[in-house]
């Protein structure tokens, strides 16, 4: 997030797109509720009529994968009415003219045709967002899990810069990170192209710096993304895979393909706290320990580094992840001898400029938000205050491109996937919780009552859902949450695995798969 969670409370306008915030990030939703209470305008754009839509000033349901068109349309109206922040555009950004030129053709009429959103709603969104004193954008996987994921995010950045809503309190472009520590994992270089603190691996200065600190030779090549790794297993260019705390047998698209790839590995190691479907395929399973069994830090969605403290000793033979990794590294011949997570944090501070001022002592209480470059620095509430990392903010002129797969006579329904409030991701943890399990014990397909009627399907009926990649069985929930022609499935449930159906088509830059759009057929089960 460019800004902090609590800042949302004081925003005059909040635009939530592709985030089912009350289900997946309820404490962020708290701040949205409070902003609303204080009179903020709430705009919600989501193909499903999610809980937040019930209290929105404007709720629109865009056709799947049409976000770029919607955002261009909003920018078109803002420019048409002169609601842009010309001062900000001139002082802080470049490339504005290209965007201005690009969105000229995205008239409300054209955008309405692409997105299925009424023209007057596009104008209303532009007015509420464009004329607000402070406006915040909140987004999540509904924006990123598309072949145009990068385009979608850049479009939101365009909108924020166009209206001067970045680098100020209660504004910003705010992605909600899905896991408690996914921000931390990225910060630590858990990505193929960067060292800790987003220092590029293919820059010689960085390579030399880490070679000298770690006392070993390092590659100057960018590594593989997850999708490239699976491809590598299939084509034999990758022999071994070490999976930590991830369950690609449920979380990755096109499960049949994933299974084939994982089975091709000469060595598959899975480290997790429960025995997942991915672990079932592993040659070696290493038992990790849960949050309650270890010390360390987590870095949350607002870049806040916080302590996690051990409440109980690790159960059974499990060990904290850092001990397992250290032991494996030692046996593979690269010596590590950290005596505690604190010793690791000290090294993090040494090699990561944005973490330099962070120590265990300073993390007592509420933690610190990076960048925190030295020990006297109070941490950073919001980013890009006086300048962007590259100097001026760069506008990107972006055209709408349709999703990789479209509905046709064989697969006439659009399928989108997501989470439900009691379960988390592949259910590795939440489906092991009896209370959460009893709240929602099984998966389902949300279908509009009109469509269900056409198919002769009643509430609770068993259906077969198939795509070009696979077929699953599940029960139906008839609901107006989805419009006709659209169906929804949560992806938590292995016995009705939504990702057996989803499309592995990738965004060309980020290599993120289009988990949020594919075409399916729905039939009453025999």
């Amino acid at each position, binding site marked *: 997030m460019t800004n902090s969670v609590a800042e949302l409370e004081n925003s005059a306008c909040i635009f939530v797109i592709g985030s089912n915030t*009350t*289900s997946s990030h*309820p*404490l962020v*939703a*708290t701040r949205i*509720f*409070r902003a609303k*209470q204080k009179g903020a305008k709430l705009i919600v754009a989501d193909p499903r009529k999610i*809980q937040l839509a*019930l*209290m929105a000033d404007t709720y629109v349901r865009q056709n799947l994968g049409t976000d770029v068109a919607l955002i261009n349309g909003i920018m078109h109206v803002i420019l048409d009415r002169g609601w842009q922040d010309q001062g900000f555009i001139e002082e802080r950004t470049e490339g504005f003219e290209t965007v201005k030129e690009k969105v000229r053709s995205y008239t409300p009429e054209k955008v309405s045709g692409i997105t299925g959103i009424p023209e007057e709603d596009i104008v209303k969104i532009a007015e509420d967002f464009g004329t607000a004193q402070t406006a915040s954008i909140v987004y999540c996987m509904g924006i990123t899990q598309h072949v145009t994921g990068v385009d979608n995010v850049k479009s939101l950045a365009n909108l924020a810069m166009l209206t001067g809503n970045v680098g100020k309190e209660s504004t910003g472009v705010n992605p909600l990170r899905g896991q408690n520590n996914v921000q931390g994992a990225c910060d630590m270089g858990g990505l193929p192209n960067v060292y800790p603190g987003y220092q590029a691996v293919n820059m010689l200065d960085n390579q030399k710096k880490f070679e000298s600190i770690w006392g070993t030779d390092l590659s100057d090549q960018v590594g593989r993304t997850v999708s490239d790794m699976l491809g590598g297993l299939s084509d034999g260019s990758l022999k071994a895979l070490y999976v930590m705390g991830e369950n690609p047998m449920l979380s990755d698209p096109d499960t049949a393909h994933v299974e084939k790839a994982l089975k091709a590995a000469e060595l598959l190691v899975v480290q997790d706290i429960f025995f997942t479907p991915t672990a079932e395929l592993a040659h070696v399973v290493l038992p990790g320990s849960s949050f309650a069994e270890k010390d360390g830090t987590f870095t949350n969605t607002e870049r806040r580094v916080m*302590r996690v*403290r051990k409440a109980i000793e690790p159960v059974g033979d499990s060990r904290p992840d850092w001990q397992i990794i250290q032991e494996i590294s030692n046996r593979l011949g690269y010596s590590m001898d950290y005596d505690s997570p604190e010793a690791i944090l000290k090294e993090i501070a040494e090699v990561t400029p944005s973490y330099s001022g962070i120590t265990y002592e300073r993390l*007592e*209480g*509420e933690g610190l938000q990076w960048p925190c470059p030295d020990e006297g620095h109070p941490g950073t509430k919001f980013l890009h205050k006086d300048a962007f990392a590259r100097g001026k903010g760069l506008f990107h002129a972006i055209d709408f491109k349709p999703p990789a797969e479209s509905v046709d006579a064989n697969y006439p329904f659009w399928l989108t996937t997501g989470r*439900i*409030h*009691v379960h988390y991701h592949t259910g590795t943890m939440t489906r092991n919780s009896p*209370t959460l399990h*009893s*709240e*929602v014990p099984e998966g389902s397909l949300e279908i509009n009552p009109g469509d269900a009627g056409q198919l002769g399907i009643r509430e609770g009926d068993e259906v077969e859902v198939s795509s070009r990649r696979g077929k699953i069985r599940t029960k139906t929930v008839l609901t107006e949450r989805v419009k006709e022609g659209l169906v929804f499935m949560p992806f938590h449930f292995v016995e009705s695995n939504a990702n057996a159906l989803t499309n592995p088509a990738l965004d060309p830059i980020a290599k993120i798969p289009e988990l949020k759009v594919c075409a399916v057929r729905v039939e009453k089960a025999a």
Partner: protein
Amino acid sequence: MIDEVKKRVKELLDSGEIKGFLGLRDMHGHVGPHLFHEESDLETMVLGDGKRPGDSRYPLNKQLIHLARCYPDDTMGVLVRGCDERGLKTLATWNQINSGKVISVGIPCPQELARACECLRPYPDDFVGGEKVEGCAHGSVRQVDDMDLAARFDHWMKEFEKCIKCYGCRDICPMCFCKECSLESNELIRTGEIPPEMPVFHLTRAVHMAGRCIDCGLCNEACPADIPLRTLYKKVADIIDEEFHYRPGYVADQKSPLNILSHTGAE
């Protein structure tokens, strides 16, 4: 006031009158419950005043029930404000604690907290220090009562619409001790959806709070959707007071009139 509390706890521990004292402590910049059983421990004790008086309270009675089940023969001390003491008295009438095995150490609430809570009785019967302040009327209830019926219904439905069904209100409630909870029953309230079935989810809980809620307000503080639950339960308590002249925990050993009306006793 903290010094008076520590002094009293030290006396109780030294004399062996209590096995341990359930209070609050500050650890790593966070306030949480703690069972004090050694004098050296007492240094970390706090009364739960963070940024504002009493903003870091805790359902200590809930822990106390748990402790009492584990150590039925031991006497425990517990920190109480006015609401907590009402809780102790009421829990005793529901046979959840044995009042002979509990020694409370009371503190009165300051005016600021009493006002924020709209607490009718912001002090326990006995307290070790400080001064008691006057109770405050239920202004928030009157505000809702002043609306006409349609506006009132609309007001509550808008609030319930925000509910994310986290069960925080129930889980933090020192008076929620049932082994089976109606809120989880699919037969009564459809499970698996947010917001949970409106308004039946919240009204079911409100009905169960009748004759039981001691108005500590922790539900309201815990609610991540800022639903003014306390106002709802205050209204329920006002109705019980009007109809039966009963407020939970005001008089020791006085049972809820709803207990007497029921066929089966508890629940």
